[in-house]
C-alpha cells in the first residue's frame, strides 16, 4: 500500500495543484511544495521499511491487476533521489508566472511517473510508466521552455519515443517468449540465445537514447537549453537514470549472454562518451549547454560500468547515477538562478561573479568541483570504482578514461574561471545574492553530495545484494 501511495500521491497532488492553480495561481506552489515534502516523507518511511525487512525489499501484491511493485536495493537510491529532486524542482520554479498550477501539476505527475518506473515489478507497468514520463516532460519543455522550446520538445519526444518503441517490441517479445509479464518471472524463465540477442538490443535502444549513449545524445543539449530550470533538474537528475536503471534491472538479467556479447560495444561507446562529452563541454559558450554535455561524459561512466558487469561495477554504476543526479541538479539549479538574474547563459558575458554574489559563487565552485570528480564529493567513489573495475575488464583502455578525467578538470575549471573569477563584468555589479528560498534548494543537494562522497557505503550497501545477484547471472563476480 505504501508503495502504491508513493506513485498515486504525486498524481493526486498534481491534480490538486492544477485545480488550486485555476482559482488561486499563487497558492499552487504551496500545494506543490507540501505534496513534494510529504512525498519525501513517504519515501523515507518506505526506505526504512524496506531496509528493515528481512529480504531488504518491499513488495506490493496486486499482481492480478498488473500492479506489482517492488522497492529493492537497486530502486531505493533512485527513488530517494527522485523524492529529493522533487522538492528542489518545486523550489526552483517557485516564481514561474505562466500557468503555475499546470506547471506544478506537470512536475508532480513527472515525479509520480518516474517513481513508477523505478518501482515497477511488471513489464507492462514498466513500459506504461516509461512512456508516461514522456508526457509531462514534453509539456514542461514545450510550454515553459525558452525561445526554441517547440523544436527541442519535438526532438526530445521523437528521439525518446523512437527508442521506447523499439523497447516496446523487445518487451512484447520477452512477454510472449516467457509467458509472463513479471520482471522476476521473465528473468527466471530466460530466453534462448537468438531471442536474447534481439531482445537485448531492442531494449538497449530504448535505454541508450535515454542515458544518452554516444552518438544518440544530441537531443540532450537542445532539450536542456530550452527546458525551464525545474525541467532540466528532473531531466538530468532523474530521467537519464531511467536508462541506466533499465539496463541493470532488465537488459542485463533478461539476456545475460547477449549482454556479455554486447559488452565491448557498450564499453567502447561509454569510453567515447567520457572523452567526447568532456571535449564538447570544453567547446561550449553557453553555460547550460556545458552542463548538458558534462552529463554525456558522466553517464559515459555509467555505460562503462554496465559493460563491465561485475558486482562492484554495477554498484558503481548506481553510485555514479545518484552522484550525477545530485551534481547536475545543483549545477542546473545554479545556472537557472543566474539566468533568472541576467537573462543570458553566455559564458563570455560573465566574469568575477564571486565578488558580487559570493554565496552563489561558492555554490558554483562547489558544484563544479563535484562535477570534476573531486574526492570527498559524490562523483568520486563511483567513477573511481568504474575505472578500477574497468581496468580489470578492459585493461589499458582506461588510459583513455584517464584523459577524460583530466578534461573534466579542464572544462569545469574553465567555466569557473570565466564565470566566477577574474575581473567583474560591470553589467552585473548590482546582482543580488541567494535568497533563503534558493539557499533552501541548494543546501540539501550540497549535503547529499558531501554525504555520498564521504560515505558511499550508504548507497552501495543497499545496492550490493542486487548487484551481486545480477553479476552472478552474468557469470562474473
Amino acid at each position, binding site marked *: 500500500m505504501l508503495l502504491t501511495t508513493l506513485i498515486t500521491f504525486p498524481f493526486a497532488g498534481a491534480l490538486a495543484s492544477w485545480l488550486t492553480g485555476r482559482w488561486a495561481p499563487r497558492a499552487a506552489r504551496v500545494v506543490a511544495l507540501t505534496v513534494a515534502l510529504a512525498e519525501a516523507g513517504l519515501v523515507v518511511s518506505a526506505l526504512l521499511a524496506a531496509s528493515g525487512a528481512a529480504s531488504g525489499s518491499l513488495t506490493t501484491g496486486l499482481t492480478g491487476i498488473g500492479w506489482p511493485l517492488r522497492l529493492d536495493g537497486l530502486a531505493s537510491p533512485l527513488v530517494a533521489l527522485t523524492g529529493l529532486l522533487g522538492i528542489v524542482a518545486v523550489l526552483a520554479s517557485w516564481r514561474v508566472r505562466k500557468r503555475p498550477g499546470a506547471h506544478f501539476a506537470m512536475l508532480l505527475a513527472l515525479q509520480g511517473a518516474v517513481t513508477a518506473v523505478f518501482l515497477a515489478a511488471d513489464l507492462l507497468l514498466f513500459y506504461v510508466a516509461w512512456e508516461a514520463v514522456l508526457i509531462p516532460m514534453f509539456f514542461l519543455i514545450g510550454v515553459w521552455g525558452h525561445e526554441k522550446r517547440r523544436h527541442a520538445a519535438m526532438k526530445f519526444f521523437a528521439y525518446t519515443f523512437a527508442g521506447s518503441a523499439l523497447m516496446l517490441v523487445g518487451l512484447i517479445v520477452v512477454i510472449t517468449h516467457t509467458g509472463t509479464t513479471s520482471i522476476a518471472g521473465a528473468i527466471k524463465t530466460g530466453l534462448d540465445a*537468438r531471442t536474447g540477442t534481439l531482445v537485448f538490443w531492442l531494449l538497449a535502444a530504448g535505454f541508450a537514447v535515454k542515458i544518452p549513449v554516444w552518438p544518440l545524445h544530441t537531443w540532450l543539449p537542445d532539450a536542456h537549453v530550452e527546458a525551464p530550470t525545474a525541467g532540466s533538474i528532473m531531466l538530468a537528475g532523474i530521467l537519464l537514470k531511467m536508462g541506466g536503471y533499465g539496463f541493470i534491472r532488465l537488459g542485463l538479467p533478461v539476456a545475460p549472454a547477449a549482454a556479455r556479447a554486447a559488452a565491448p560495444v557498450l564499453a567502447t561507446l561509454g569510453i567515447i562518451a567520457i572523452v567526447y562529452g568532456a571535449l*564538447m563541454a570544453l567547446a561550449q559558450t553557453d553555460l547550460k549547454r556545458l552542463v548538458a554535455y558534462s552529463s554525456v561524459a558522466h553517464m559515459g561512466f555509467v555505460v562503462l560500468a554496465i559493460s563491465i558487469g561485475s558486482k562492484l561495477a554495477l554498484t558503481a554504476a548506481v553510485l555514479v547515477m545518484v552522484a550525477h543526479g545530485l551534481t547536475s541538479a545543483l549545477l542546473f539549479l545554479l545556472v537557472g538562478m543566474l539566468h533568472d538574474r541576467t537573462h543570458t547563459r553566455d559564458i563570455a558575458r560573465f566574469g568575477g561573479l564571486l565578488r558580487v554574489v559570493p554565496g552563489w559563487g561558492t555554490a558554483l565552485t562547489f558544484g563544479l568541483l563535484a562535477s570534476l570528480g573531486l*574526492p570527498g564529493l559524490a562523483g568520486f567513489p563511483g567513477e573511481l570504482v568504474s575505472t578500477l573495475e574497468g581496468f580489470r575488464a578492459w585493461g589499458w583502455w582506461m588510459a583513455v578514461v584517464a584523459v577524460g578525467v583530466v578534461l573534466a578538470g579542464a572544462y569545469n575549471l574553465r567555466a569557473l574561471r570565466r564565470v566566477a573569477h577574474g575581473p567583474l563584468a560591470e553589467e552585473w555589479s548590482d546582482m543580488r545574492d541567494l535568497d533563503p528560498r534558493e539557499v533552501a534548494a541548494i543546501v540539501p543537494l550540497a549535503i547529499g553530495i558531501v554525504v555520498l562522497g564521504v560515505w558511499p557505503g550508504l548507497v*552501495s550497501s543497499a545496492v550490493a545484494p542486487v548487484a551481486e545477484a545480477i553479476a552472478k547471472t552474468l557469470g562474473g563476480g
Partner: protein
Amino acid sequence: MTWFASHPLGVLLVPLVVAAMLGAFGRWLRPAAPWIALLGPAAALVTGAGALMAGESRVVVGSVPWIAVGDRVLAVGYRVDSLSALMLVVLGVVASCVVVFSVGYMRGERGWSRYFALISLFCASMAGLVIASGLVELFIGWELVGVCSFLLIGFWYDKPAAADAARKAFLTTRVGDAGLLLAMALIWTKTGSMSIDGLGRAAATLPPAVVTAAALLLFLGAAGKSAQFPLHIWLPDAMEGPTPVSALIHAATMVAAGVYLVARTWPLFAASPVAQGVVLVVGVFTALAAATAALAQTDIKRVLAYSTISQLGFMFAALGAGNWRAAIFHLVTHAAFKALLFLAAGSVIHGAGTQDLRQMGGLVRRMPATAVAWMAGGLALAGVPPLAGFFSKDAVIAAVMHRSPLAAWTLILASLLTAMYVARSTQLAFFGDSRDVYAAHESPLSMTLPLGVLAGLACALGFTATALLGALGATGGESISAAIVVPAVLAAFTGLATGWFVWAREPGAENAFPSWLERAWGAARNGYGFDAAVVRATVQPLMTLATLTYAFTDRIVIDGTAEGVSKGAGGIAEWLRELQNGDVHWYGAMTAAGVVVLLTVVVWLTRGA
C-alpha cells in the same frame, strides 16, 4: 601524547571541524580565526611527535570498508608509522608558523576567515594523505591538497594572473594524477587490494613489467605534484598565491608529497631498476636545470619557486639512487629552511612593498631580523656547514654517488649554482644601496617570531640526522665520506663567493655579460621557454580540437543525421498524409506502425525459438 598517537584521526577531524566552523561562521569569528586555525597544526604536531617518541616499532593502524559488495571490498584506513609521524611533525611545525605569520601578513585582507578555513582544510587533507594506509585514501588526500592549493593560489581570484595560475596548477598536476589513477587501477587489477602494506608482496610476486609500469605511473603522479620536469611548469606561476601559502603548500608540504608517495610505495620502486633509473635521471636533470633558472629570476618568490623545483629534484635523485631515507631527510630539512626563506621573502614583500629584487637593496639596515632569518635559510639551502642543508644534501649526494658518479657530480654542480643564486638574491635584496625601498620597515612580531623558530630549525636540524634516519629504520653505516663533503663544501663556497661578488657592485651585473651568456641568461629567466611552448602545444590545439569537433562532428554529422532522419520522416509524412511537419500525433502513428512492422520482423526472426 601517547593518547594522541594512538588516536590519530584527530589530525584529520580537528582541522576539518575548524575549517567547517570558519567556513560557516567566519563572519563572527574574525578576530579568533587564526588562533582557532592553529588547532589543526597542533593536532598534527602532537600526534606526530607522540608517535615518534613511542618508537620506530610502533605502528597504529585501523581500517573500515568504504565500498563493499560481497567479498569485493575497497577499504580505507589509517596507518601511523615513523615515516608518517615525521611528516605530521613537519606539517604541524610549518603550518603553525605559517598561521602565526599570516596574522600579520594577511591583516586587513577581505576573505580573512576564508583564508584560515582553507589553511585548515589543507592541514586536514595533508594529514589524510600522510596517514593513509591505502592508495584510495592517499589519493583522496592527494586530490584535496590539490584543490586547497587551487583555492589558495587563486585566493585573490579577481586578479587574472592568480586565477589563471590556480587553474594551471590544478590541471598540470591532474595530468600526473591521471598516472596515479592508472597505477591504482593496475595494482587493483593485479592484486585485488589497495593496501600499501600489500605492495611488498605485490612487488615480489608480480611480473617485473607490471611492477615497473605501476612504479612509473606512480612516479608520473609524484612528478606532477612535486613539480618535476616536464610537469614543473605550474609551480613558478603558483607564486601568485599569498606568500605564507607558498611557504606551506608550495615549499614544505604539498609539493613534497610526491617524494613521500615514492617513499611510501617504495617496495615497487625497489623491485624496478628501470623505474629507479627514470626517477634518478628526471631528478638530477630537474635539479640542475631549475637551479640555472633560479639564478636568472628577478622576482624574489620566483627564485624560491625554481629553487624548490631544484631541491625536489635532489630528493628524487636520492630516491632514484635507491635511498629513500636520504630523500626524506632532505625533505625535512628543506621544509624548514625553504619555509623560512618563503616567510622571510613574505616579510620583505610586506615591509618593502615589492617582490622585484631589482627594486630592493640595503634592506639589512631596515629589516635586520628578516635579513638574519633569510641568511640563515639561505646558508642552509646553500649547504654551508653546520646548517641543516649541509647534512641532508650531502646525504643525498653520497647516496647518488653509490649509483652514478656522473649524476652525483651533476648534483654538486647544481649545489654550486644553488649557492650562487642564494648569494645573488641576498646581495640584491639586503645589501648595497637602497634602490626603491626607502619606506621599508621591519615586520611585526607575529611575523618575525615564526621566522625565529624556523631559523633555529634550519640551523640545528642537521644534528638530528642520526636520530632521524634511525627513526626511519636506517641501519647506520651511511657515514659521509670526505670524498663527498670536500667537493660539496667547496662548491657551496665557490658559488656563494661568485654570486656575492658578481652582483656586489652592480645589481644588473648580468647586463654586462658577454652576449652569448646574456642570451642564455634571458632564456633561463623564462624557464628556457619550455612553459610557453607547452602551453602553446596543448591549450590552443585542445581548444581548437574541441571547437572543431563540436562544430563539425557533433553539430553537422551526428545532429545533422538525427535531424535529417526526423525531417525525412516528416517529409514522408507530408507526402503520405499531407499532415503538418512535426506533429506529435503523426510521430505517434508512425511509431505505432513501426512497432507493428518490427514486431513482425522479430517474430519471424525468432520463429524457431
